[in-house]
């Protein structure tokens, strides 16, 4: 693991002069998440956990994790004494740990001095190399030295620092960059007074932005303890009803009923555990929504599950096509090369049996797996790419009607560069045009289409009408 990734842990005390602080610190940590108690609550069986941890456990199996007796979340009560102890311990920890480490160093230094004479720096090096862990953690304590007196955990430190975060279903006003429900932005734009009117105000819901500033300011003052939300009877609710409830609660309301249920349960856990917190560290709804978004990314609807994402209904095909564009390009180029090779041999036959039909040239060209495009240069190589001219020539030999129709098509295709050109050499010009129109088409839509319109390996719907008689290839 990264050496910069250091976490305070109760084992930090083991190599110090105060190893007894290890169990003390362990006792101040939640047994579920192994962190310091965060908003500790006590259960009806008298066990203490972080509010969010025990709420999640109860959601999972309704039992106390320690003693396995039944538990319910409405019987949890904040454990204020533990909260206070944990807070004070965390404040004192960096300094105490530093002292305890220094104490240990002194001890071992004394020990060393008996054996040999060393100056101070040598002792430190010696000590450090022996206790690699203590060395590692000492560097941290040195880093913390300046802030040794400050609490370790700075509550709400990210409040206001995350202006870019826009919760699900919210959008930012382009003028005053306040976030609000997406559907309200247009109405808001009519009355928006510009960026100055509400600068600095951390408004996060439409209801508040409609209030005068004086009223908004009241939000900043310590509010009375919010009331806990109660569970819904999910079995009784239909999908639409649940969606409505989620919208009322101001949380994302997309996804299946099961997902919405899980999201609502998690929202209750997050929200209610915030109710168990001390006034001074109580988070605002925006932060809670961010926590819910985190849950969404890791365990909710946006979780990167191992199951194939492509098979999901809400799979973002366009995004996937974009991010894998180079792969697709590569595959298409390779498929075209393959398609082109046999046609060289079959070219003569194809020209005879391939009977072009007027007005249908453009259609097969649209389908990405169209074998016709086998002769096209891949889009990234540009039209200057050399390619065997006879491929395009042959099918049109002895077939003036086809040539005429293609010419008409090409004229339509809006290529001013070619419009005024006189066709001195019909055949070669034709091939150039054919190529350039194809190329421009694949330039406009280089790869987006293949993944969505037609499955990669499915046969195109109209392969047989291809002017080049690609049946021979297939």
């Amino acid at each position, binding site marked *: *693991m990264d050496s910069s990734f250091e976490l305070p*842990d109760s*084992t930090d005390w083991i190599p110090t002069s105060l190893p007894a602080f290890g169990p003390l610190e362990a006792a101040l940590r939640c047994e*579920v998440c192994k962190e310091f108690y965060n908003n500790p609550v006590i259960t009806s069986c008298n066990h203490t956990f972080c509010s969010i941890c025990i709420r999640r456990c109860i959601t999972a199996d309704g039992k106390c*994790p320690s003693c396995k007796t039944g538990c319910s979340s409405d019987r949890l009560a904040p454990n204020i004494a533990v909260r206070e102890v944990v807070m004070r311990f965390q404040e004192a920890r960096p300094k105490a740990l530093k002292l305890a480490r220094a104490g240990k160093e002194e001890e071992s230094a004394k020990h060393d001095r008996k054996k040999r004479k060393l100056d101070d720096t040598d002792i430190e090096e010696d000590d450090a190399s022996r206790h690699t862990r203590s060395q590692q953690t000492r560097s941290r304590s040195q880093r913390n030295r300046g802030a040794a007196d400050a609490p370790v955990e700075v509550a709400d430190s990210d409040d206001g620092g995350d202006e870019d975060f826009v919760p699900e279903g919210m959008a930012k006003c382009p003028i005053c960059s306040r976030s609000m429900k997406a559907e309200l932005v247009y109405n808001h734009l009519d009355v928006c007074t510009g960026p100055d009117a509400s600068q600095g105000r951390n408004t996060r819901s439409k209801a508040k932005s409609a209030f005068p500033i004086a009223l908004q300011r009241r939000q900043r003052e310590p509010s009375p303890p919010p009331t806990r939300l109660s569970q819904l009877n999910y079995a009784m609710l239909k999908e639409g009803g649940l969606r409505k409830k989620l919208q009322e609660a101001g949380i994302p309301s997309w996804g299946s009923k099961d997902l919405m249920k899980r999201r609502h349960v998690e929202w209750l856990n997050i929200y209610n555990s915030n109710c168990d917190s001390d006034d001074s560290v109580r988070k605002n709804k925006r932060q809670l929504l961010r926590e819910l978004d985190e849950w969404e990314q890791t365990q909710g609807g946006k979780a990167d599950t191992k199951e194939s994402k492509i098979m999901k209904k809400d799979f973002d095909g366009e995004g996937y096509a974009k991010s894998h564009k180079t792969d697709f390009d590569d595959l298409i180029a390779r498929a075209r090369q393959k398609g082109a090779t046999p046609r060289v041999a079959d070219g003569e036959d194809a020209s005879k049996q391939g009977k072009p039909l007027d007005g249908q040239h453009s259609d097969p060209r649209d389908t990405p797996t169209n074998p016709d495009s086998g002769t096209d240069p891949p889009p990234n190589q540009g039209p200057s790419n050399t390619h065997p001219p006879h491929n395009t020539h042959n099918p049109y030999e002895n077939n003036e009607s086809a040539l005429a129709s293609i010419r008409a098509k090409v004229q339509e295709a809006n290529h001013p560069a070619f419009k005024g050109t006189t066709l001195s050499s019909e055949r070669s010009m034709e091939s150039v045009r054919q190529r350039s129109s194809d190329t421009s088409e694949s330039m406009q839509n280089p790869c987006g289409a293949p993944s969505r319109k037609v499955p990669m390996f499915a046969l195109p719907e109209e392969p047989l009408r291809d002017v080049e008689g690609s049946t021979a290839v297939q």
Partner: protein
Amino acid sequence: MHDKLPPGITLIKADDFQTWLMDIRVIDSNPIYQGETYRLKFTFSPQYPIEAPEVTFQKTETHPIPWHPHIYSNGIICLDLLDRSGWSPVHNVESVCVSLQSMLTSNTKKERPAGDENFVRYNTQRPRDISFVFHDNQV
């Protein structure tokens, strides 16, 4: 977190929060497990610790699968602690290792579970999806 592990338990690999490898030995002189080290593979889901990790023995050249009436020869362990019903979020990697150590220590039968061969051959499920029946309270 696990710098000071109980005797007989060694952390092998913990690069991420998905898979950890641990080695365990049986400390006392149980003749069945004498001189052998067993490798445990922990697989964590994003729901850990609310949800139990998936714990199996891994067979390598130097690490056999221990003989035990509740350990299948493909490494799958039948232990209520690791099942949905028996798991508790207060458990951690260390406590699971200790439990397995003691489960091995107390065992006197050098045998596989009944139906081991069939199970090993036909099982395609992941351990967490298998519904074990826990009948033996001696372990």
